[in-house]
């Protein structure tokens, strides 16, 4: 299951690809447009400051009046402020460009492909196949796909069965089977039909598929701010307002102290103090979060969904495929008292010969590998297959015997079989019951086999728990997420596997509505619930869950109901999604802390610089020993500007989430980004000052 997230045709882009940088730089200038920038109040005020500085510089250039400082000094400040805005724009642009590149590679899978659409033609409504371009497909159209065709659009198989290569989307090379009806009826545009032929109905309007939605989200076109992002923007705007007050009030204060303050110094102080670092990186962080989800092959319908994932308290996971490897395997046959081993094995094998389920196949396989191959002489010609249903919870076969009689073989869960046996007036042996319970208690699944309502024995099926899964649950527990295993097994088996895999809770003998009820109950208690599902009967639960991840292979209904789609069909993906959500919030929080903590050093650089000429005693506050007032201000502004591009990689990659408990994580991040945020600019400004001092 440890699948590579990247596939050959969709390599994960490096942080700064050359071609992306070109686009991003161009975009940085386009984003200077105040109408766009006003959405980011912090950077907008920097732009206003830059504009004022341009006017001041022009004034000095024209009049030669140097009461506001030299032309070169003012020009430098203006330039650095402009660069600050550009850096912030660049951060957003590079995140968008990466998102677009990511989306572009997905879009390649939906290049124009010919679609063989089936149209009713003529008086007799004879279906005729027309070949049109995939772009012309409309919702409700039915098209035909044969071996070798690229599927032109997302849709649902209405007729037929096919093996399909989905590697273009998932990176998984093994072909998968998709067929009409049931939970595996969905196909994705861009994948390739390898065998057989299917008729597919288009389920989405062109441009409205999940992928299109995701592409728009990553590109930033329709990206809406998430609730946490809005709250943070408000807090940052609050800080910005405080600093407007501080800087405006400084003018009369300075007049009182008989100190002339230049416009350049005042604006520099302001720009340094307002949280430009986080302000410049905020939207880049958001886009990068969506981008990371996409890299994990998860299509989120909104940024909010990803963020909510970080808050999830309870995680519902299907046992099969998530916690255990694929399917259960038969490991033992236990005959009932008075039944020979061979007799028992033969009945078991017969019941499973026509059974296409993995369990059934494993029973036949085990029967073949016995001392004598009992399956050789078996035949199921003319037999009726009895399929497994959730209601009967048993399956089997009716084999006609010469003479009109038929041999009725059933296998299934103990309680349902017992009901059948007892209804027929037969005795259900207590030895079998004991054995079955023993198997269940050891994590196996007992399947009781009966022939003509008489018990033949019990088959032991064993689950194999995925290696490494209990570590993942441990990690989730440390994150504060409760894991719940959903299984159709009986409570004893479920308990054993739950204990072995390390999940916190389980729902045994689960029917679809049990999932729904469990989710509701958790939500009533104020919990946020995430679940993964694929089938149509999962749709209500997916819609009810706060984070519903539908598998791409699942039905259209399931995909509509959830708020994310996992292209890899990997049930453990939820864990990644939760971490991406947390990372998103952490990156915002830590960079905000860093940005605000930076201000301490900036005050110590600029405030003494403003006043030491008229109040020499304040030189004592120049603890960094900066060269001169001009160099101090320039250094602070330069530091303020270049910290943005320096942090872009962190913003795009995201601050690492460590499941070490909330308090420990807070301590760690406070230490790195809080204390680090106080210390770093002292060092940075001093170094820049040493360099700037060479020129002044």
């Amino acid at each position, binding site marked *: 299951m440890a699948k590579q997230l990247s596939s050959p045709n969709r390599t994960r882009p490096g942080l700064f690809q050359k071609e992306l940088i070109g686009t991003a730089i161009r975009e940085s200038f386009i984003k200077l447009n105040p109408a766009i920038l006003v959405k980011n109040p912090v950077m907008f005020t920097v732009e206003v400051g830059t504009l004022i500085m341009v006017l001041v510089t022009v004034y000095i250039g024209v009049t030669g009046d140097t009461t506001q400082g030299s032309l070169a000094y003012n020009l430098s400040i203006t330039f650095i402020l402009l660069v600050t805005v550009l850096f912030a724009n660049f951060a957003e642009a590079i995140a968008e460009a990466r998102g677009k590149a990511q989306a572009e590679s997905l879009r390649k899978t939906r290049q124009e492909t010919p679609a063989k659409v089936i149209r009713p033609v003529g008086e007799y409504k004879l279906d005729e196949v027309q070949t049109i371009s995939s772009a012309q497909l409309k919702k409700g159209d039915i098209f035909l796909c044969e071996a070798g065709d690229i599927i032109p659009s997302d849709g649902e198989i209405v007729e037929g069965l096919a093996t399909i290569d989905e590697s273009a989307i998932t990176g998984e090379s093994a072909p998968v089977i998709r067929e009409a009806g049931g939970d595996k009826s969905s196909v994705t545009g861009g994948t390739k039909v390898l065998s057989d032929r299917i008729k597919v109905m288009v389920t989405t309007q062109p441009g409205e598929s999940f992928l299109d939605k995701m592409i728009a989200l990553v590109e930033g076109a329709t990206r809406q701010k998430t609730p946490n992002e809005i709250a943070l923007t408000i807090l940052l705007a609050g800080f910005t307002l405080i600093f407007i007050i501080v800087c405006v*009030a400084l003018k009369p204060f300075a007049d009182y102290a008989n100190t002339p303050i230049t416009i350049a110094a005042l604006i520099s102080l302001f720009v340094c103090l307002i949280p430009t670092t986080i302000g410049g990186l905020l939207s880049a962080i958001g886009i990068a979060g969506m981008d990371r989800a996409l890299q994990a092959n998860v299509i989120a319908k909104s940024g909010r969904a990803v963020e909510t994932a970080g808050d999830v308290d309870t995680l519902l996971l299907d046992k099969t495929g998530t916690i255990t490897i694929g399917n259960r395997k038969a490991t033992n046959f236990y005959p009932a008292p008075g039944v020979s081993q061979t007799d028992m094995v033969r009945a078991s094998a017969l019941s499973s010969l026509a059974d296409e389920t993995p369990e059934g196949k494993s029973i036949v396989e085990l029967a073949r590998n016995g001392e004598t191959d009992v399956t050789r002489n078996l035949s199921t010609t003319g037999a009726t297959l009895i399929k497994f249903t959730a209601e009967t919870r048993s399956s089997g076969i009716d084999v006609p015997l010469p003479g009109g009689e038929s041999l009725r073989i059933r296998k299934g869960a103990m309680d349902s079989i017992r009901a059948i046996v007892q209804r027929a007036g037969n005795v259900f042996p207590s030895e079998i019951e004991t054995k079955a319970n023993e198997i269940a208690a050891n994590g196996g699944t007992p399947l009781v086999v009966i022939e003509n309502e008489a018990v033949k024995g019990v088959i032991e099926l064993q689950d194999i728990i995925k290696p490494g899964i209990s570590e993942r649950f441990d990690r989730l527990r440390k994150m504060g997420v409760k894991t719940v295993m959903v299984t159709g097994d009986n409570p004893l088996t479920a308990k054993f596997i739950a204990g072995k895999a390390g999940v916190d809770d389980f729902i045994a003998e689960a029917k679809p509505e049990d999932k729904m009820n469990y989710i509701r109950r958790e939500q009533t208690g104020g919990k946020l619930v995430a679940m993964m599902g694929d089938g149509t009967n999962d749709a209500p639960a997916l819609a009810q869950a706060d984070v519903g991840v539908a598998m791409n292979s699942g039905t259209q209904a399931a995909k509509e109901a959830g708020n994310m789609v996992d292209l890899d069909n990997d049930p453990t993906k939820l864990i990644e999604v939760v971490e991406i959500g947390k990372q998103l919030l952490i990156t915002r*929080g830590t960079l905000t802390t860093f940005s605000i903590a930076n201000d301490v050093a900036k005050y110590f650089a600029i405030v003494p610089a403003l006043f030491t000429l008229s109040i020499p005693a304040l030189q004592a506050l120049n603890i960094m020993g900066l060269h001169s007032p001009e160099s101090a201000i320039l250094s602070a502004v330069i530091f303020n500007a270049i910290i943005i591009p320096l942090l872009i990689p962190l913003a795009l990659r995201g601050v690492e989430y460590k499941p070490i408990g909330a308090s420990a994580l807070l301590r760690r991040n406070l230490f790195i980004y809080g204390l680090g945020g106080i210390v770093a600019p002292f060092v940075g400004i001093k170094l820049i000052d040493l360099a700037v001092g060479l020129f002044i």
Partner: protein
Amino acid sequence: MTTEWMGVIVTYGITVLLAIPLGKFLANVFKDEPNAFDFMKPLERLIYRLGGIDPSREMNWKENLVALLTINALWLIYAFVLLLTQGSLPLNPDGNPSQTPDLAFNTAISFLINCNLQHYSGESGVTYLTQLGVLMFLQFVSAATGIAAAVLLFRSFMPKPVETVGNFYVLFVKSITRVLLPFSLVIAMILAFNGTPASFDGKDTLVTMQGDTVGVSRGPAAGFIAIKHLGTNGGGWFGANSAHPLENPNYLTNMVEMIAQVVIPIAMIFALGFFINRKRFAWVIYAVMTVGLLMLLVPTILTELGGNPAIAHLGIGQPTGAMEGKEVRFGPLASAYWSIVTTVISTGSVNSMHDSSMAMSGTMELLGMMVNAFYGGVGAGLLNFYYFLIIAVFISGLMVGRTPELFGRKVEAREIKIASIVALLSAFLVKGGTALAAWFFIHYGDASWAVKPSAWLNNPGFHGFTEMLYEMTSSNANNGSGFEGLGDNNFFWNYATGIVLIMGRYIPIIGPVAIAGLLARKKYVPESAGTLPVDTPTFGLMIFAVIFIITALSFFPALTLGPLAEYFSLK
């Protein structure tokens, strides 16, 4: 020296020892659980009946705020009218005149909002009627308003989602009948027995050894001084406040007054802990506030004990520390302790002249008022602490990767908006007000006002700047202590500080109560392993960092130009 240190340590120790059981008692009172003062019930019932109050009616945050603001507005009008006409009303043995409209406006507001800025002097500016009927009355009701408003926050910490946050009237009445009134009575008795006057007679006269006849103001002062401290009001009966020998006769009364003013603010923290049954959380808040107090107190004490460097430069020894502006009966240590205690909580009474404090002490006094949440005024301290708490919860929630929540309730955009507004209000009022004053002083020094702006300051330069900054800070913090040396009884200062006083009082009440009301009705999310616990030292550190950063960023430049410039120049 050891005795002096012991005096302060014992004073603080007694305060905390009293505050913990008092906190438990307060929680009982506000939870309506049986307590020792249930005999007050008939009186309370009478008040409810007279006021037409239904004590069983629970109100939501909006209704509570409407109730609080309406009743405050009524008291303002009442106080304003009486102060304007006091000269011709009874109980005026010394024949003091009525107040001018701007002074009456300022005085009425500043007592209404628990500040007691006092741009007048008690001996000549008010009469016994207004001292008792207006000022002392307001000292009781303003303290009770603060306590009641703070208790309105408590429900937002509790697990059950509720629409209502309590009944302001009931909390208010009980604060008076069960806390302020009985405890003031005890304190007043101690003061009276130690020499504080409690008489309706007018001025006494005495003949000094030089043969001069001196008029000595008196009055029913003991009760006034008791509630002045217990309710963190701070307005003195006499102009010299608690430096006055009749207002604060000896070291014992000094201790009593110091204990009285801090005990309720500390008890309110523990009351919160008992009320919501989270004692650890209360201890974290207490620890944060106490560390804050110590960080201001220790430098102040050391500076004051070190004496004035300017005098040291003259070669004069100062074995008792800096004594300018201090009372010999208290000494520099008890004076330093008082000066910090009175500024961190919003009392603003003084037993030494802050104008004469060393520059570093002045910085600490200013910082105490700028933060205004290290214990803080009765109720007001918790209200102020609450918005810092919200911001801390928000940032740290993000830092651990979870939508921020406070005791199971999500903190979202609306709460952050309100907290941000309250947080930037201090900066706006203090810096805006000081900037305006500095602007007039420099650019319109000769404006033809009754007192020319250029004549405001006794000490120009850095110290003069500090005087203006201090006055605005004190007003915004509803502290009421004055740096003095500032000609403040005039048109500009009376109105400017009056406006700062109103906004500095009511917005920090409305904001936190609104946040609490919004949070209280939100869905409660039970705590899990992923929840960030707020009752840990780590989170305490986080709150402290938020308080420190917001205050430092808002006020560093102003402090630099005032007390810090003076400090570095004197050094």
